[in-house]
């Protein structure tokens, strides 16, 4: 519990996220059945199990090394759209962490780089009813609360992410498989935004 994050805490974040994804896999797949193709929970569960196996098999000197491995593992094991999107997020996130201690400000920079990677790969904007609807307000809230420290910033991010996820529920999807449903996608919670909020909540529980 300090002002900077240790590599071990990053590992804890990923282990906790793997556990949360496993517990919620059926719920995520259920959400995806309504407006997608009923595989988000099982795909993320498979990917995060592979991440946990990679954490156990290797030793990582820095957050940058750790997240490079995690990003590549997700790209190689998840498939669908979530593989490249989460994979790209962690690759870009890790690429910005550097070798030094990671404080609230440095984590904010890395999170923003990760989200920019998602935007670049998925070409989605706020309002398209995707994970970006959770990430964009989460980043804003994070930056606003960062001067108050890691704990405050991560909690604010998780809360704003959940708000963004819920605000996207009434929207008509414009990206991803949900967009094929047109008006019928309105009223359903987005699975990708949901798994993104779980990632933010796991961060708030482990990194601060």
């Amino acid at each position, binding site marked *: 519990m300090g002002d900077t994050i240790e590599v071990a805490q990053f590992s804890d974040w990923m282990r906790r996220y793997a556990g949360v994804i496993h517990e919620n896999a059926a719920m995520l797949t259920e959400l995806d059945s309504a407006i997608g*193709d*009923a*595989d988000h929970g099982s795909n993320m569960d498979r990917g995060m199990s592979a991440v946990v196996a990679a954490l156990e098999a290797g030793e990582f000197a820095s957050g940058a090394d750790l997240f490079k491995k995690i990003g590549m593992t997700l*790209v190689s094991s998840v*498939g669908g*759209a979530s593989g*490249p999107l989460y994979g790209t997020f962690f690759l870009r996130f890790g690429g910005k962490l550097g070798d030094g201690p990671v404080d609230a400000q440095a984590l904010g920079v890395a999170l923003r780089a990760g989200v920019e990677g998602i935007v670049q790969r998925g070409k989605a904007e706020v309002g*398209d009813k995707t994970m970006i609807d959770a990430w964009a307000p989460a980043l804003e809230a994070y930056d606003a609360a960062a001067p108050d420290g890691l704990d405050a910033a991560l909690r604010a991010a998780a809360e704003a992410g959940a708000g963004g996820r819920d605000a996207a529920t009434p929207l008509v999807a414009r990206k991803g498989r949900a967009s094929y449903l047109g008006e019928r996608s309105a009223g359903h919670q987005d699975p990708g935004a949901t798994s993104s909020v779980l990632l933010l909540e796991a961060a708030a529980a482990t990194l601060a």
Partner: protein
Amino acid sequence: MKKLINDPADVVSQALLGMEVAHGDRLRVDHEHKVVFRKDAPRSGKVGLVSGGGSGHEPMHGGYVGLGMLDAACCGEVFTSPVPDQMLAATTGVDGGAGVLHIVKNYTGDVMNFEMAAELAADGDVQVRSVVVDDDVAVQDSLYTAGRRGVGTTVLLEKLVGAAAESGRSLDEVTELATRINGVGRSMGLALTSCTVPAAGKPTFELGDDEMELGIGIHGEPGRKRVPMTSAAEAAQLLVDPILTDLPYGTGDSVIAMVNGMGGTPLIELYIMYGEVQRLLEKAGITVARCLVGNYITSLEMAGCSVTLVKADDELVGLWDAPVNTPGLRWGV
């Protein structure tokens, strides 16, 4: 869930084991990467054709690997795009020095994973091009959405482009042909039932006995709208009308037509549907130059069908008639 499987987690790998022993004369399987290769790949000087996507659409794509069609197919989990490692293994494995064409169906995941694979392959020495098939008229195309899905035209395109690659055309020529075929191909589908993804264990959506889902894709996803169940004649009209107005096709046009089963509809019904489709086309002054009736691009055990039309000319009919020897399509050999 009633399925002839051993374990929901092993559906794809065990199907590939069976496929390898069934078609070992023509195919070999890289089990680590879940890639089906033509047995004699790579062919020196021939453009390599790689496709792939989620599993559950059999015979597409693994069943279309062989002489006159694909050189390799990457098999993802059921209804889930394969990953870049698989596509890279397929791409380097089929490159005979003339480059490789990726045939990608327009789904967000497929497009992103193939893009990442193409970036990785470009770091090596392989020249990679890609064509994204987006032929589903149920989805209104727009700059602001994911666009139309890739469905039935993919099968016809793989056959036609496969013949062109077999005849020694260059990567540029093969890519141009693939793009042109996608431009003149249109599809529309309907479902009478949903389907069950093995890992999910229950149907993706529920459909009443008196309902059908119009404008479906190939992943058990709900369609554009739910309509009352109707006769084959009216169902054919619901599929053919939006296709004909979309391209548009007109009097005097010639087409390659496919009436495709989604996996759970018997051939006897597909032939009734084909008869109705042919009658509607005739009425519109359109000639069917060649046709396919059967299960070619499926959605597990979903009942229902789709109609695909590709506007044909002499060149395309010639490519269609060229020899093909794959588990899913075989003639002229």
